């Protein structure tokens, strides 16, 4: 009796996602019902190329920095992380998670590549969807007034100042220096921007993850002016 179609489809896609099919290693699946493995390899390579195209589109600088490590890194990724969605962002997230785990075991090279990847991922997250902000959290929030960090602001405490990577006009190499970076989508801008803030502002923004009563954060006479400035720059929002 013939196998159920789903079972056959699973076997086929598992084979097509395998290192054997994509990179031509080993024998691959033996029971693919007489389907020509060379043709399946062509299909598998198409699928792999589409996926990597999506990831590179989100993480172009990271890929450029991987250099000669790209091939082994990508092979390990393909082997360990099969594709689960067509979403460009989700595939990039998957690759970023894979890299982050890898960099815990192996020193990243160059050392600042993890900060570059984190910033690129943050830019993609910001540009991805303005429909996802934590609506549920908003709905259950009981504070009627307060301030919080804008949802379109992501904070990254980097070990390197990697802004020159994103601003080629700076014509400098990243330097090792703890750099509190804000990645934000300012009002009226269609592209995320990356900029450095002083540590105190970074810490304040980090503390404003949820609606907060301003008096609870009172830090001096200049505080109101600072809040006004951060609000004007679209970094915090105020609920009167």
């Amino acid at each position, binding site marked *: 009796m013939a196998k159920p*179609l789903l079972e056959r489809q*699973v076997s086929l*896609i598992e084979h097509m996602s395998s290192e054997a099919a994509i990179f031509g290693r080993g024998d691959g699946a033996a029971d693919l019902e007489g389907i020509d493995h060379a043709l399946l390899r062509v299909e598998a390579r198409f*699928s792999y190329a589409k*996926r990597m195209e999506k990831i590179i589109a989100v993480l172009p600088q990271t890929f450029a920095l991987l250099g000669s490590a790209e091939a082994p890194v990508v092979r390990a990724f393909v082997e360990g992380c099969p*594709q689960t969605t067509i979403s460009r*962002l989700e595939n990039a997230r998957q690759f970023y998670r894979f890299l982050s785990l890898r960099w815990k075991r192996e020193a990243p090279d160059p050392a600042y590549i993890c900060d570059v990847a984190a910033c690129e991922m943050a830019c993609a997250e910001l540009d*991805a969807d303005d429909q996802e902000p934590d609506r549920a959290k908003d709905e259950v929030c009981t504070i009627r007034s307060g301030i919080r960090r804008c949802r379109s602001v992501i904070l990254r405490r980097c070990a390197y100042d990697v802004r020159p990577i994103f601003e080629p006009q700076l014509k400098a190499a990243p330097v090792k220096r703890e750099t509190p970076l804000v990645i934000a989508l300012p009002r009226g801008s*269609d592209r995320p921007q990356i900029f450095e803030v002083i540590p105190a502002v970074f810490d304040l923004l980090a503390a404003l993850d949820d609606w907060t009563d301003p008096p609870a954060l009172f830090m001096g006479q200049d505080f109101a002016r600072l809040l006004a400035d951060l609000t004007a720059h679209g970094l915090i929002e105020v609920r009167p």
Partner: protein
Amino acid sequence: MADDRVSMTTGGTMPAVGIGYRAAINRWTRENLHRFDALEITVDHCLAGSKTLRSAIFDLVGRIPLTAHGVGLSLGTDAPLDLAYLDRVAEVVERLRAPAYSEHLAFTRVPGRETAALLPLPKTEEVAESIIAKVRTVQSRVPFPFLLENITYVFEWPDSKMSDAEFLNLICRETGAGLLLDIENVYLNATNHGFDPHAFIDALQPGLVKEVHMAGGVTISNASLAKPLLADSHSHPVPDAALDLLKYALARHTPSVIILERDDRLEAGNEILDDIARIRACVGAARSRKTHGEALVGAAG
């Protein structure tokens, strides 16, 4: 503004000619908007694309007629359809004011694993029955005409018993779905698998073809392949043989829109415009032939 959904054809007789909208050439597309009668929008870009992309797409509503094409349904996976996805598709099609929603007769994933490649189904009556039920589900969730697109495939399931046209005709006849005829795919399949593309077009039920896709691909040759394989890469000019097939199809079918698909080498804008001109020439030639034929019939009567 008039409802663009009413008719995609130009002047009610000639199919509209346009391209698939691609974010990478957003600016170029807008600068050349007057050269197209319609744009095809990938609904999945509206569902999961970046904010910038979604904004750019919806900004086109009302500027030019839009058609809605999906890539994320995986109609052929032998598992229940994602109804929530279909509900979101319905919202997008409505917002685009598109006259129809099209998807591929293919599967791209199984639970927990995706390929993003359009894979063929075994062409059997049993599989057709399963697809018919799913198409009915799609039609019940997305209240717009539904079109199935024929795919290109590099391999066939050994237990396939029906021809491509028989499989499509059966599903469309039972469901009332239309066909988005991808002529490049017909050309590639005919070349790669050795059948007559004209016979395929002849075998399609009259009135079935509602929209057409055109594209150009590449030839893949390597030692492991028994013969060179034509691939649907959407990267190069439409081959003359595909344009000849378009002329052949237009003599027999009356699609409302013809879309040029291009996903690679997008910087070659002149190639895209040249392809549009070649497609328009085919449309013009088909129209002349039909007018001439009608005149002859009229004179004889």
